């Protein structure tokens, strides 16, 4: 087997080096083109079996992974928690052992508990890709956000990026913070203090209490989805007030001193954390993020399978390169 650039698993961006993150982004570049072809398929992962294990509802991430896998010619199986043995009380460790017994190559897992991806990775030989674990990390989302910013600005280093909203419960926020900091960006967060985790400043990020201040400072805003159930748990009074105080609106963006780029991991609550005119407006790169998601996930799967970044271009055409 060739040298692995990523190790066995992709569990988060915190454990990765800046070089590893750059490798993934660079590897994603040639894979972007595959999705633009009439025949959107390369033989890179032919014969590999990948299980998409989703213990939480997901549309975008699951479909994006599935497209990435299919465009690399892997055989894929989707398992949702509802209707599976999990509902019958099977533990995660037993689920993992049973999958392993079927001789699979990779597992892509979304799970409501932080640390579940690492738990699985330590117990099976297959590669594990974290597709979101609790409020811990969502590394491929972080990577596609990085790729989108790099496309737009031509660099990450020195960029000022503010992550807005419910940082406390957000795995997207954590992956973005690690990825951006490692690549030399300046990172801030902005949201109601009731939704900011304790000690967030110690990660090396600036905290803005007011969205107006964040807009004055930032080159790009990554606007997080506000989970509607947070109100009932007492974290904030109402969605209406959230929009009034923290919402990213055209009126607020007009006061920005420079061109602003708006990201959102989706699904959006239009009129809550982001106004429709912003989401659909010229600042928005939200659909570019979705497009980049497939390329980044192809790159991750390719690299975990043992592929080399410098051969990614060649891998698009010829099969088997990943498993020499």
């Amino acid at each position, binding site marked *: 087997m060739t040298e692995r650039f990523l190790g066995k698993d992709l569990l988060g961006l915190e454990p990765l080096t800046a070089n590893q993150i750059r490798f993934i982004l660079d590897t994603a570049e040639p894979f972007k083109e595959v999705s633009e072809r009439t025949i959107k398929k390369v033989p890179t992962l032919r014969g590999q079996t990948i299980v998409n294990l989703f213990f939480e509802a997901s549309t975008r991430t699951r479909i994006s992974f599935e497209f990435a896998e299919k465009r690399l010619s892997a055989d894929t199986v989707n398992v949702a928690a509802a209707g599976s043995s999990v509902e019958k009380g099977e533990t995660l460790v037993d689920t993992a052992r049973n999958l392993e017994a079927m001789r699979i190559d990779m597992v892509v897992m979304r799970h409501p*508990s*932080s640390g579940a991806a*690492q738990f699985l990775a330590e117990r099976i030989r297959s590669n594990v890709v974290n597709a979101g674990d609790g409020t811990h990390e969502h590394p491929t989302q972080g990577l596609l956000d990085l790729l989108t910013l790099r496309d737009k600005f031509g660099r990450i280093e020195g960029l000022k990026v503010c992550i807005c909203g419910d940082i406390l419960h957000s795995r997207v926020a954590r992956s973005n913070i690690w990825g951006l900091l490692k690549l030399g960006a300046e990172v801030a967060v902005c949201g109601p203090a009731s939704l900011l985790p304790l000690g967030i400043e110690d990660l090396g990020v600036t905290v803005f209490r007011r969205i107006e201040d964040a807009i004055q400072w930032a080159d790009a805003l990554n606007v997080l989805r506000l989970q509607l159930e947070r109100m009932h748990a007492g974290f904030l009074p109402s969605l209406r007030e959230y929009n009034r105080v923290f919402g990213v609106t055209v009126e607020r963006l007009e006061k920005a001193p420079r061109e602003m780029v708006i990201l959102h991991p989706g699904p959006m609550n239009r009129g809550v954390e982001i106004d429709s005119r912003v989401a659909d407006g010229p600042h928005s790169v939200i659909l570019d993020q979705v497009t980049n998601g497939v390329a980044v996930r192809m790159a991750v799967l390719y690299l975990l399978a043992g592929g080399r970044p410098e051969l990614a271009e060649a891998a698009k055409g010829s099969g088997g390169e990943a498993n020499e």
Partner: protein
Amino acid sequence: MKPLLIRGGRVIDPSQGYDAVADVLLVDGRIAGLGSGLGAPDGAEIVDARGKAVAPGLIDLHVHFREPGREDVETVATGARAAAAGGFTAVCPMPNTDPVTDNQAAVGFIVKQAQAAGAARVYPIGAISLGQKGQQLAEFGELVGAGAVAVSDDGQPVVSSHLMRMALAYARAFDIPVADHCEDPTLKANGVMHEGLVSTRLGLRGIPAAAEQIMVARDLLLAELTGGHVHLCHVSTRGSVELIRRAKEKGIRVTAEATPHHLTLTDQACEGYNTNAKMNPPLREAADVAALRAGVKDGTIDVIATDHAPHHYDAKEREFDDAPFGIVGLETALGLGMTELVQGRVLTLPELIERMSTAPARVFHLPGGSLKPGSPGDVVIFDPEVRWRVDPTRFYSKSRNTPFAGRELAGRVVRTVVGGLTVHRGEVA
């Protein structure tokens, strides 16, 4: 019963400020003599304790033995046997069994199971409220009559301040402490570890230090109001230590305990989602550990107690969110105390023995904790220097859930004697 003469050890008895090389004689299950050059009575077993420490048996005010209810995880017999292996001659099991130990028959059952075990003495703790539901007081008088030495709803806080007030007031008739697990349930919510930088990084829901301190402050106010004796279980934060210190200065009747793990580990032990570092209260920060150590040193924290909490390995082999709180502690407590506190120059060896034997006896009004003639013949002999590696597969406890597996510790039990009978002999190193 043969007399037992323990010869030539370093005898440490904090109850009388004794620390010298001497002999200890046990006759008819009691301490019969302490001094140098004691003669052996006819038929006495003679133990050569040269190079060893000889002390009153350790006493643990806070254990969970899971019987009745979860005998697959621990029973009174296996718990008492694990205690003996750890140098403990008396332990106090908490009442959060299934069914709850909230009536005289339930207390009597535990006493009976302990007698059959023939290991460490077992002094049950009764529930504060029926079913530990926090609604109606249990019958303290009948609990005490059956052998309970304190009351507690441990595992659950006493949420109602009114009920806690009544418990403290009512307990005065029996002169027993009311032991509280201090936790504001709305602040703890579904938290799984200490709230701080580590929980933020791991994305795990946090339990703020204030969740404990609010209840500590409340209990201190209620102890002052009632004149009752409140005993605060497993204190974990620097703020709690400060509150207790001030209350003691005011003369409020409060005693407190800290666990070996809160005295030696921080929330960083949760890295990698280690479920054996998941406990309640959670492991806190370095500044909390330092404050707890200072509190144990100056007597603000009276007692070291293990909160021995056995769990099946399947239960800990889970996602961090789903794993139960707690670790076993009886068989590592002395080693941790010797290694981290004595060799770490926090406590002297006599101070460690005081916090693990003499003080617990005083706080719960138990016999033991002393080598004065006439005291129960409860003695631990241990080698304070020999180093050993923690191997959970060799525990006498039924459970293996410890974050200290593989850790090298100093201080190994050579022999544990309860009522003049040897209940544990250590393996030769």
